[in-house]
């Protein structure tokens, strides 16, 4: 389905999205944006999986992408639950402030 000429560009886009997400996780301080950047990285992996699935003419990549979507949904539920808890005890939403685990 996917032509040979397009496949490297698809992989490079996936790599770009993944590194962009990693950059966002490292430089942003709002934990909500950090979660969104994690979502971006998971979506980049999904793009690579579906691209390989189309390129190698095998549907297993789509099955794995489906699993990744399920894990991402579970991660968002727990992460946003944690954030509301942090907010409800009156803390500011800043990942540089929430560093008790380091000490």
């Amino acid at each position, binding site marked *: 389905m996917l032509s040979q000429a397009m496949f*490297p560009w698809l992989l490079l886009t*996936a790599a770009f999205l993944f590194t962009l997400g990693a950059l966002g996780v490292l*430089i942003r301080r*709002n934990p909500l944006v950090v979660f969104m950047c994690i979502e971006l990285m998971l979506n980049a992996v999904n793009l690579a999986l579906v691209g390989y699935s189309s390129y190698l*003419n095998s549907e297993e990549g789509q099955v794995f992408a489906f699993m990744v979507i399920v894990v991402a949904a579970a991660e968002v539920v*727990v992460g946003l639950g944690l954030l509301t808890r942090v907010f*409800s005890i009156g803390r500011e939403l800043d990942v540089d402030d929430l560093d008790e685990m380091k000490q």
Partner: protein
Amino acid sequence: MNVLLVILLILTAISALGVVFSAQTIYSALSLVLTVGLLAVVFLVLNAQFLFVVQLIVYAGAVMVLFVFIIALLDPAAEDRPRLLDLRLILGVLAVAALCTAVFIAARNNVTYDTSCTNQAVTCMHGYTVGSLAATGDSTADPFHTFGFPQNAVNQAGNVQTVANQLFHTYVLPFEITSLLLLVAAVGAVYLTRRVAVGPRRDPQAEQRWKDELVEGAE
């Protein structure tokens, strides 16, 4: 189709830039909605119709609504620009540059990945062969010529049927374990967001006002 794919990939990259570099959280969320929607269309172009629908329902429908809801609930302030020459920023950019290089090198090397032998070896447990390279015979001269676009052996029975066959036959145990994962996530979210008993949650002034009104009404 290639032109469409190029346009979609460029738009996806631009909207992903918006996720990382928007100062307002809600703009990041809306950029992510756009990114997720564009990726869904990319999945459609790549002949993954089932994932197209799942991506729209789960990501754009559920996850992003949850994000926007939490943003409306918490109302986070706009973030300052990241400080330049901050040690953490420099370390982050260096780490990302290293990661970027590694991923790009890996992507470059995998482009020459030899498909002619693996596709013959991958056979489904339930009868049908994944990939049609073995049937074409000429796979050594041009291992990619079966990927021209009207023909797609994987989807001959329909994309949903093919994916479901894998999910419920070959990968049935991981599929069931994901349901356990979702259950654990739901229980964890309920536990985390329950009402905490300690600490005053009531407003004493409002209570006093309410009592005063009661007294005035009685008089």
